[in-house]
Every structure is written in structure tokens, then in C-alpha cells.
């Protein structure tokens, strides 16, 4: 039976590895400017994880095959090098590989979080609330009007709680249910949570960030390819969490300007 176990382990290891090695299925295409280091990090991690996985499963299988059962006549042996060899192997091989991953991965993270948004990044506010995302553009005056939590009224479509009668800055704010952005233009995303925790995830954009109620978090990114992408909520926010999504439309600059004008007329 030991031999069956060994064979099963090898089969499982190889069957698991094949789709990865052959890139049978691969990640969503990267449409961001900061995604390349992330994808590189994913590939390197996959290589290291994959090698560790295959090597250890195959060695396990081989040892089970070779050293199970009573094998009369053979003497019990000890691994040459003993525990010391194993500890050294762990520190040298695995230790260095994981630290390398960590060190090289800093750059991918720093690109996103330790660089400030460009001075001309377009600000867009996104509000996450049970169970939809709504977006706000500042309008020609470039300023977002203040939010009044007590004025929020979903029945009249005042999702942000704007007081357009009294707040000058709110008068030209544009509220939309879909997010459109011009291609190749940096966006400064201001993230506001209306009620509970939510998250903003666009796989193609290589962006995932939780909203924090009570703390407005910001993010910046640039999309490089025109298209329609999904924004999904990835933090459990209640019964409608499964349905909480919105669409991101990356448009050419003229198409985006057109769209924004149309949206302004609908306010």
C-alpha cells in the first residue's frame, strides 16, 4: 500500500503542476501601469512555490515508496548529514528564497503605496454602501462638495448626501453608478465607506483595497487599455455582498469627455 500512496502523491503533484506550467489558464490581462512588478512577483513566487511543492512531494513519494514496509534483511538507516543538513538546507534554500521574494516584492508594493499621486491626477470619489458603488466627479470647479450623512436618501438618488441647494461646491458634482476614466490618465481614487466595511477589487487593474468606515483611504492608478471591467466588492458586507459590483469603463479621452458631459446633464 505504501507504493500506492507514493504513486498517488506523484500523480497529484504532477496533475496540479501541469496547468500552471502550461499556462493553461492565466491571470486577467494587466491594464495598469503598476502591474508589471506584481505580475513578475507572482511568477517568481509561483516558480519558487512550484519547485518547493514538486520537489517535496516527489521526495516524500519516493521515500514512502522506498522506505515503507518491513523490508526484511535491510537495516534501518539514517539520513546522511542528519538534522544539521536539514536545518542548513531550510535556512539556505528556503530562507534565502523567501527573503529574496520579500525584498524584491517591496518595490511592487512601494510603487502603489509609497508614491504620491501625480499633481494632475484626476480625482474621483467612490462610495461603497450596502450594496452598490456610486461615484462622484468634482465637476468643472474641481472641488467636491461636503457630504452630509443625514441627507442621504436612496429613494431620491441622493446617495452621497449632497446639499446642492446650499453648498456651492456640490452644485456641479456629478454622481454616477458606473465609473468611467480616460485611458492613460492617472486617477486619484478617494474611497469613502457609507456604512460597513467593503473593498474595491479590479483584477485587470491590479488594484484591491478595503474601504475603512471612518477613515477615507486613497489610491492612485492609471489604466492603459480601453474596455469595460468589473469592480467587485471583496469584503463581506451583508446579505447583498454577492451582488455588490459596478463597472469600470476605460474610454478614450474624447469619449470620456462626452460621457461626463452627458452624465452632468442627467444630474
Amino acid at each position: 500500500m505504501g507504493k500506492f500512496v507514493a504513486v498517488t502523491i506523484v500523480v497529484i503533484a504532477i496533475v496540479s503542476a501541469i496547468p500552471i506550467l502550461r499556462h493553461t489558464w492565466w491571470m486577467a490581462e494587466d491594464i495598469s501601469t503598476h502591474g508589471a512588478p506584481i505580475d513578475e512577483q507572482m511568477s517568481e513566487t509561483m516558480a519558487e512555490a512550484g519547485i518547493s511543492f514538486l520537489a517535496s512531494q516527489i521526495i516524500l513519494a519516493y521515500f514512502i515508496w522506498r522506505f515503507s514496509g518491513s523490508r526484511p534483511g535491510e537495516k534501518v538507516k539514517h539520513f546522511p548529514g542528519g538534522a544539521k543538513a536539514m536545518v542548513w538546507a531550510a535556512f539556505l534554500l528556503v530562507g534565502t528564497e523567501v527573503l529574496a521574494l520579500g525584498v524584491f516584492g517591496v518595490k511592487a508594493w512601494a510603487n502603489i503605496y509609497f508614491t504620491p499621486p501625480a499633481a494632475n491626477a484626476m480625482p474621483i470619489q467612490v462610495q461603497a454602501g450596502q450594496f452598490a458603488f456610486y461615484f462622484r466627479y468634482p465637476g468643472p470647479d474641481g472641488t467636491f462638495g461636503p457630504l452630509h450623512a443625514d441627507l442621504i436618501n436612496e429613494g431620491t438618488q441622493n446617495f452621497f448626501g449632497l446639499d446642492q441647494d446650499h453648498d456651492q461646491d456640490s452644485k456641479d458634482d456629478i454622481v454616477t453608478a458606473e465609473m468611467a476614466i480616460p485611458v492613460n490618465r492617472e486617477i486619484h481614487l478617494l474611497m469613502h465607506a457609507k456604512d460597513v466595511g467593503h473593498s474595491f477589487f479590479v483584477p485587470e487593474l491590479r488594484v484591491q483595497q478595503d474601504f475603512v468606515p471612518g477613515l477615507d483611504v486613497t489610491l492612485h492608478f492609471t489604466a492603459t487599455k480601453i474596455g469595460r471591467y468589473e469592480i467587485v466588492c471583496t469584503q463581506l458586507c451583508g446579505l447583498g455582498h454577492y451582488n455588490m459590483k459596478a463597472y469600470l469603463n476605460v474610454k478614450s479621452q474624447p469619449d470620456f469627455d462626452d460621457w461626463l458631459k452627458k452624465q452632468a446633464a442627467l444630474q
Partner: protein
Amino acid sequence: MKAAQKIAVMSSALLLLAFAFLYSGNNVSAAGEGKITGTIKLDGTAPRQRPIDMSKEPSCAKIHESNPVHTENVVASASGTLQNVVVYVSEGLTGNEASAVSSDNPTWDQKGCQYIPHVMALNIGQHFKVVNSDQTSHNIHPMPKQGGPNHEWNKSQPTGAPPFDVTWTGEEVAIPVKCNIHPWMHGYMAVVKGPNAISDANGAFTLNLAPGSYTLTAWQEELGTQTQKVTVAAGKPATADFTFKAK
């Protein structure tokens, strides 16, 4: 012998009368022979109804692709009449009329990610059906006044779930209803005593009432309430028009 027969006849008659009284109090679909008709008008410009973007729910967005829907907070026709106004009797009903429960079993439908109808009027204890005609799950969340006679509830109704049978326990004008999953879905349920009506697309309504003097109340979700005294005579339909001032 004769005396016993007399007693039997009289008690049967009394029993029949008693049944008639009991029965008349419980299950009336049309009361009285009088009628009030009227039109609800809006004085002023209707507030702009905003278009609803249902893109987060593609199955519903597709339904409205060629004909986008708008909010229904104030639905005014081109001729200035108001739809979805609840008209009911706030004073003047007799005991029986007030406790009568309509045997109508209206349907509160979720269709195209909208509530159809947007406003419903019901009697206390009147059964109504909540139905989901959409391909997506909805949740029905009525939010009656805290501490009032009606209790808040919140239930999901996936596609494939059977209709819900619901009743309300007390008068309330009106209970807001929302769907948490689709934040633009809003409606109202007005729970009133006695005959009631909702103005149609031409702002018209009809109430069937026994002859007498009544106070009618008209309620619109944004524009508030209006009252009017009306007297109904047998065979002569009375008119009661209401005009709401735009904000």
C-alpha cells in the same frame, strides 16, 4: 306546542340576524351605494425625476435599455395630474366600515428591479402577495415607524421562491419599503381603515362609500397630506379634487 314553535322561529330569526351582523362586519368588498370621484393635481412644476442607472444589475439594465426608468417620488402627467397619491377616509366611517377588511389580494411585484406598484394602499389585516418576477434575488425590507403597531422585517426572495403572503397589524401612512440589494428600489405601503384608492396615470381616483359625511385625506410621499370634507348622497356621486403645491 304553539309556544315552542314560536320560540323556534324567533330564535332562528334572531340567529340569522346575528349571522348577518357578524358576516357584514368581516368580509365586505363593496360598501354602500355612494361614490366619490376626483382628480389629484399638482400646482407648479413637478420636481425632476432622476434617471435610474441599473448597470450593477445587468439582467434588469437590459430590460430598460431602450426605455430608461426614472425615480417615482413625484409622478406628474403632462397635464399636471399626480399619480400614486393615496386617498382614504380619515373621519366619518362607521364602526363596521372602519373595521371592514377588503378581500382584494393585491400583488406587490418586483419586476425589472422596480416595485410594481410603487405605492399600495391596504386595510389592516388585508392579505397581499409579494412576488419576485425577476431573474435576480431581491430582499424586501419594509421599515415601519419604530415603536409603532407594525414590525420591521427583512426577507430575501430568490428567483424560484414562492410568493410571500403578508398582512399589516396597524394603521400607518405610509411604510417605506426598500430593497437593500438594489438601493434604487423604493416604494410605500399605506395601511388605512376603510375604502381607499390610489390615483392613476391621469390623477383620477374613485371611492365607494355609503351615503354620509366624511373627511378624505390624500397623501403623496414627498408633498405631504391634504384633507377635504365631502358629503355623499345616495345615487349622487360626489367629487373631491385635491391640489398639491410643488415644493
